[in-house]
């Protein structure tokens, strides 16, 4: 066994150990904590699998945002745990469930090992056609050009999740501000961090977006960093969450898919096809869309984390 594969096996064991912990831990809070660690280790796996872009996205979302969301929920739901434990199925059912899950996992393992190696690939096609966009990062090319429709729909999915969350508001708070008001010590250490970090964070977020054209990175990863900065400022109490009825907020929330749609329709108009970029302007157009998407992603993620409006505007 080479050093590389020893490392990979060890990494896989730790990841699976954490996975088992997430499932079996007694307390939800501990399980959610395990999930944060799991989400931070997965990017290492993705690096080994040659997917740096995915590693960035997984670190930002899996370990970061999802982890925070689940930890927060676990903290709030701590009191309900004992009541629900009574609903735990009996030993026989659990045995049956474990046998069935194991069977499916085994067949999946067998099948995934038997997949053709080297497998079929679109990498040559993606590289060959990258001239059409002028971008050097093949993943960005797939997301923004070859499979732009998926990316467009995904942004609508994100917006829809937000509308779904908003639709849970008690009627009297409609149009109000999401989440609790955070009252932190304005001279405390958190407020200090929230003053110091965001300028840097915004630069890094935009940098990640910018390098995404040619290197790993992109709109989603950059947007997540911006969202984190926004959340930090809100948590430190330096800035309140905006009321969800604000027009500027709503414009930001649809800017990404909106501009995507407009450029896409422009492609239809200018002769080639829907979602086709005129070759002379492909790169600037894509960067413009990505910039709008970064802002939209940042706003959407921030509000998804903030949750259901609970206060009047």
């Amino acid at each position, binding site marked *: 066994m080479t050093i590389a594969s020893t490392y990979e096996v060890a990494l*896989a064991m730790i990841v699976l150990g954490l996975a088992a912990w997430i*499932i079996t831990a007694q307390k939800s809070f501990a399980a959610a904590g395990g999930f944060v660690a799991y989400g931070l280790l997965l990017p290492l*796996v993705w690096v080994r699998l*040659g997917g*740096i872009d995915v590693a960035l996205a997984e670190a930002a979302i899996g370990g970061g945002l999802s982890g925070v969301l689940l930890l927060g929920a676990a903290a709030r739901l701590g009191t309900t745990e004992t009541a629900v434990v009574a609903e735990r199925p009996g030993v026989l059912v659990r045995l049956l469930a474990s046998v069935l*899950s194991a069977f499916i996992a085994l067949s999946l393992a067998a099948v995934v090992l038997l997949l053709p190696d080297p497998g079929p690939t*679109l990498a040559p096609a993606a590289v060959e056609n990258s001239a059409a966009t002028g971008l050097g990062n093949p993943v960005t090319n797939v997301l923004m050009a070859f499979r732009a429709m998926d990316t467009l729909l995904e942004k609508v999915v994100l917006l829809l999740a937000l509308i779904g969350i908003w639709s849970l508001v008690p009627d009297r708070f409609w149009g109000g501000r999401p989440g609790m008001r955070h009252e932190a010590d304005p001279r405390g250490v958190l407020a200090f961090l929230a003053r110091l970090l965001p300028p840097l964070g915004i630069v890094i977020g935009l940098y990640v977006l910018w390098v995404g054209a040619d290197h790993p990175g992109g709109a989603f990863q950059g947007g997540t960093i911006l969202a984190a900065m926004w959340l930090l400022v809100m948590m430190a109490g330096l800035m309140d969450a905006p009321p969800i009825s604000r027009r500027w907020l709503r414009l930001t929330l649809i800017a990404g898919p909106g501009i995507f749609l407009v450029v896409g329709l422009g492609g239809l108009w200018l002769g080639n096809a829907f979602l086709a970029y005129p070759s002379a302007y492909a790169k600037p157009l894509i960067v413009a869309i990505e910039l709008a998407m970064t802002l939209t992603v940042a706003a959407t993620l921030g509000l998804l984390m903030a949750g259901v409006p609970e206060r009047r505007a």
Partner: protein
Amino acid sequence: MNAAVVFGLCGAIAIGLGLYGLITNPQPLRKILAFNLLGSGAFLFFGVVARRGAAVGLGGDPVPQALVITGIVVAFAATALAVALLLRLFEMTGAATIRADTRSSPADDPEA
């Protein structure tokens, strides 16, 4: 043993664990966690597929990698919506369970 083999097995086991947790743990939050585990296993499968398609100097086939990025975003949106639903349910009822007494109908009319 290359990365694709190791992490392919890893993904399969993660899916198995996720399925087990989703079935047996009665707490909705743990089901959401298990769903995330399941999802990460599915994404690892895409990663394995991408790795095996490594060619022309790329570390992996960019198409499945792009699919995973889209998938991660969708899974996060799902998590956020599910958590919001759960917290709202908890706020209203003080409990967090999805076990319903099936015979008591969901749209109880206010007069009955």
